[in-house]
């Protein structure tokens, strides 16, 4: 078995497990980037998503100006292709992270790249909360924060989990591109050590590992969404 593996995937074995170019290193880099970008981008996306819903026409804190601003910011960031975003915001990245290359530096563009996507998804998820339920809460004298946390967040929970799953999967996709600014990870492994060196076996295994990640996220997300839905 071992011998067969060494024979079929010689370049995979050559990369090693630890060390700068090792598989374990690539895996942890991907997890690191996904995890932190999900937190930063997630919080930002939630704030923007909620902001869009409550300030929209007919929302509980209707406000044309704020809505317009939030909407445009989200649209603009969504319009910039991620690979270009990486380059464009490099000075900002340097200001925030102290460097513009490496795994930690990649968190800045990753967070900014994923948040508008997530904000839109959150907006859609929360729009599905029945207006009647919100109205019933208002009629019973609920405050703004009662409605945000007690109604929108709770009633939209299952849908929020679903869109978070989708976002997380697309974020894993973005981390693959972050290799372009030296962030490492499985995407970088597939391209830099696989494709560019004609080591197709490395590309194949890196792809499989990414697929395992995606599948895992999907399964857990589906389970949680179902668990938290009482509709």
């Amino acid at each position, binding site marked *: 078995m071992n011998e067969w593996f060494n024979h079929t995937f010689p370049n995979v074995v050559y990369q090693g497990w630890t060390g700068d170019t090792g598989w374990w290193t690539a895996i942890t880099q991907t997890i690191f980037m996904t995890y932190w970008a999900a937190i930063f981008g997630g919080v930002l996306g939630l704030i923007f998503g909620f902001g869009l819903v409550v300030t929209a026409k007919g929302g509980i804190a209707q406000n044309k100006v704020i809505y317009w601003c939030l909407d445009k910011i989200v649209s603009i960031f969504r319009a910039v292709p991620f690979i270009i975003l990486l380059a464009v915001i490099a000075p900002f990245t340097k200001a925030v992270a102290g460097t513009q290359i490496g795994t930690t530096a990649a968190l800045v563009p990753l967070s900014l790249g994923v948040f508008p996507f997530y904000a839109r998804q959150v907006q859609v998820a929360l729009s599905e909360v029945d207006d009647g339920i919100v109205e019933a809460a208002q009629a019973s*004298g609920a405050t703004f924060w009662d409605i945000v946390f007690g109604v929108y967040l709770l009633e939209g929970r299952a849908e929020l989990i679903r869109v978070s799953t989708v976002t997380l999967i697309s974020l894993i996709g973005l981390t693959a591109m972050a290799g372009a600014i030296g962030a490492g990870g499985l995407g970088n492994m597939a391209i830099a050590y696989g494709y560019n060196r004609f080591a197709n076996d490395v590309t194949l295994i890196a792809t499989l590992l990414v697929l395992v990640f995606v599948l895992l996220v999907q399964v857990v997300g589906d389970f949680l969404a179902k668990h938290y*839905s*009482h509709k």
Partner: protein
Amino acid sequence: MTKPFISFQNVSVAFQQKKRTIQAVQNVSLDIDQGDIFGIVGYSGAGKSTLVRTLNLLQVPTSGKITVNGQTLFEKKDQNARPQQISAKELRLKRQKIGMIFQHFNLQNERTVFDNVLFALNHAKLKQKEKEAKVHELLELVDLTDRAKQYPSQLSGGQKQRVAIARALANDPEILISDEATSALDPKTTKQILQLLKRLNQEYGLTIVLITHEMDAVKEIANKVAVMQNGQVLEEGSTLAIFTHPQEKLTQEFIETATNEDEAIATISQSPAITALGAGQRFVRLAYSGNNTNEPLITSLYKKYEVQANILYGNVEILQGSEVGALLVVLSGDQDKQAAALANLKEQGVTVTILKEGK
């Protein structure tokens, strides 16, 4: 004269749609007394929901004045005047005292029955233990104690509406707005909900504003009615007066839907007794209400005038303790005596409508 408990004065609501302005409510003035069950009927789009939603300012009027229990919630003399509105905090407190139930119940799907009611108590000045006791009390009132831990999706429509009622009552409101609350329910459940509302009205003195397109519901529990069309109140009065002496055509239409009488007339008109109505016979509708029902109507026709009355259809209802009835009869006998008999009936306050004369 005491001041009305709830008062709408010249309330108008307009919606701006692109370049069109839609007048949903036009200059409506309406007074509702404490302890009333005030029915507001009208077809969908008549503006009844919009009007009543101004009561808790879920809908802000374009102009007009709204007072509840002496407190002015909103006042704007005309379209260009500055609106005067109670503060957001006062409004929240006021809303706690105005419960509301809806056609589609509007319960939170992700909260249990218990938590749905508990959420309404979020700002009550009670300790957690007291809040929980209160929820139990309310669930007992609507007879749903055994469902406390279930989610709304596990309940029937009637049960959901009862949870909604418990939620609406959480802060001991003075007013309950029922916005088409029985329209999505079957007739039997509708009756149960209406009886529950009536009980709340009688036992707790709760003032109820009942919006509906079902005259049946009004007939069942309301003591006063207003009929709305195109954003205006066409007619208002006690349920008894409206049912017995409707002035407007629309009101009559609504009443007919509640009694099914025109259906009966249609069916009977096709029967041989009417199609082959003999010479000197008359097909007549007699409508009566209140006191004159104590007189044995049909018997007196025969005794005094020797006019025979063959009853083909009869409908008697008790509205606010008064009898209201309608009979469809075929009269036969001497022409002069029939005329005298009908004149006498009219004198007694019976509404006589001749539907067909025999040839």
